[in-house]
């Protein structure tokens, strides 16, 4: 529903020249599973600059943020068992370091959740949506009409070659979060 309205806005085009390079790369020999990625579209997208940018943006936020909050949580737990006297030090009124650090864990969780959602909405969602649409179109073209694309050559797609794919605008109308 959402997708059909966005048909006009699609900016991702996978050129024929590029497509010819990768067909046949996707058959990961699986004895008891279906043939994976029959059209090779996933390998193609994985190698594209747009996808690598989306992945880079996701990982550059999610991985350091995960490391940071896990380190902060472990520091909080380890201080409580290794140096309880530090945690017992009064700060203001009845509040001591331990209680304030616990409340700070709540605050940092809320803050990181908000920051992640904002980052994903502004920096990742639009490009990811375009890629999703491109893959859907390619998959339908390759398999939906009941015909496989011919395997012209073997081998993987040329790295980094991402013809015609441009990063769409940073913001989308009607988006929240």
């Amino acid at each position, binding site marked *: 529903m959402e997708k059909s309205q966005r048909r006009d806005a699609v900016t991702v085009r996978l050129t024929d020249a590029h497509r010819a390079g990768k067909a046949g790369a996707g058959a990961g020999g699986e004895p008891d599973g279906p043939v994976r990625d029959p059209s090779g579209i996933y390998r193609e997208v994985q190698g594209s600059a747009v996808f690598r940018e989306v992945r880079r943006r996701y990982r550059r936020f999610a991985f350091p943020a995960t490391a940071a909050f896990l380190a902060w949580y472990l520091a909080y737990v380890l201080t*409580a068992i290794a140096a309880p006297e530090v*945690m017992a030090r009064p700060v203001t009124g*009845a*509040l001591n370091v331990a209680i304030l650090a616990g409340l700070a864990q*709540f605050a940092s969780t809320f803050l990181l959740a908000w920051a992640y959602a904002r980052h994903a909405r502004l920096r990742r969602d639009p490009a990811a949506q375009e890629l999703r649409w491109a893959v859907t179109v390619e998959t339908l073209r390759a398999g939906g009409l009941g015909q496989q694309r011919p395997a012209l050559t073997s081998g993987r797609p040329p790295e980094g070659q991402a013809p015609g794919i441009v990063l769409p605008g940073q913001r989308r109308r009607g988006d929240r979060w």
Partner: protein
Amino acid sequence: MHQGPAVALFSIFVVVTLAITAWFGRQRRGSTEDFYAGGRLFSPLENGFAIAGDYMSAASFLGISGLIALYGYDGMLYSVGFLVAWLVVLFLVAELVRNCGRFTLADVLVARLRERPVRRAAGISSVTVSVLYLVAQMVGAGSLVSLLLGGTDGRARTWTVVGVGALMVVYVSLGGMRATTWIQIVKAVLLMGGTTVLAALVLLRFHGDVSQLLTTAADHSGHGRAFLAPGLKYGRDLTSRLDFLSLALALVLGTAGLPHILSRFYTVPTARAARRSVIWSIGLIGGFYLMTIVLGFGAAAVLGSSAVRAANPAGNTAVPLLALELGGGSDSMGGTILFAVVAAVAFATILAVVAGVTLASSASVAHDLYASLSRRRAVGHRRSRPRSEVAVARTAAACTGAVAIGLGLLAQNLNVAFLVGLAFAVAASANLPVLLYSLFWPRFTTRGAVWSVYGGLVPALALVVFSPVVSGAPDAVFPGLDFRLFPLDNPGLVSVPLGFLAGWLGTLTSSEAPDAAGHAEVEVRSLTGAGAA
């Protein structure tokens, strides 16, 4: 004489939930999509409330507040761990799982690994986690009822466990995911409402002065300032401190491996909706755990720790007693009503949680185990026979209920918080490593996945069998025997690293070449949502 209104309110909740079940059971369409994922059309707000309703158990509501009332700061660490865990879910799991999977954890894994061995392994560990979690809730329900009815009447306990088990089977097998979700939403609203009223009454009593609340709590706890600092519960010796670290690890890593939490992400249409539901649920769950801290210190301040301990040594009655006192005492109208509300909310909480866990467990049995056992159904044929899979799932829900009732009756004397901690530890050891590896590690292979699951599951369970919980301690399951080899109550500190290590070793020793096309598919699908169910 304050049980009457509580029983009445609880009966109303049961009638409402049965009506919800009947409504959604009547209009059911019988597809797997409908039964496991509620048609995937819930809004982020609805799913956020349902996630919160799935996650906030009676152990949190009664148990954590009770622990804070008895041990002060050391109890508060539970509240923090249960919330921080949601960042793992939000950053690494929710969106990617929504994009790659259909109904269960195994669906995500088989997107790039061999279907049958992986499905079987993930199915076994998911069912194990679910059953442990269910037993904890059943035992909790039994103790709650005997607390509320006064005394420890064995018959009331037994019938409560049987009744809760029967209700959850009815909810799940007749109503599927739609009914379960709405029951969880109703429960989340009731629980948040009840907790907010109580927390507001506590703060009003201390004129909104948190410092005064904490000072009074410390004074009435019998421990003075030490009540507000670490060490009252987990500070005795090195073993108890390590046990605490183990529990902290299990709590923060276990949430992302709980099958009933993972299955909630499939009930929304897109990864973005999954993300927004987690944001909603973090807000709700964070608010809830902040209020449990207020209730815990409030119970210590208003009632005093010794009164809480006298009513129940584990502190589980702290919140109901606090409600009675805040309402004006046991002879007053207000006290009776507040007590009834708290008791009914606690029952509602248990029912909603067990329904969610039962559904996840029946999905693992029918979609993973049954499908991988019956050979030819594993590939391609599933889609053509959706009705039969739902029928299997309904039967599996009934069997899960029977097993949970049986174990719940056997385990009646086990500590509820320990059982929940154990379920989290198994989820963190067996489910999380394989999930993260298959989402992020290009070289990961089928053997790595199978080793990772069993390499986390088997040590976690074995360490528990040889822990002081089972033998060699005065409060153990077999106090007369002593075959303990492992000093800690919670296995997480050892079994979680073992799960990761086993997955790594299995992959390195695997003769199978990494499936580059499979990895490309998982990576592209997980980050873009292409081809998502």
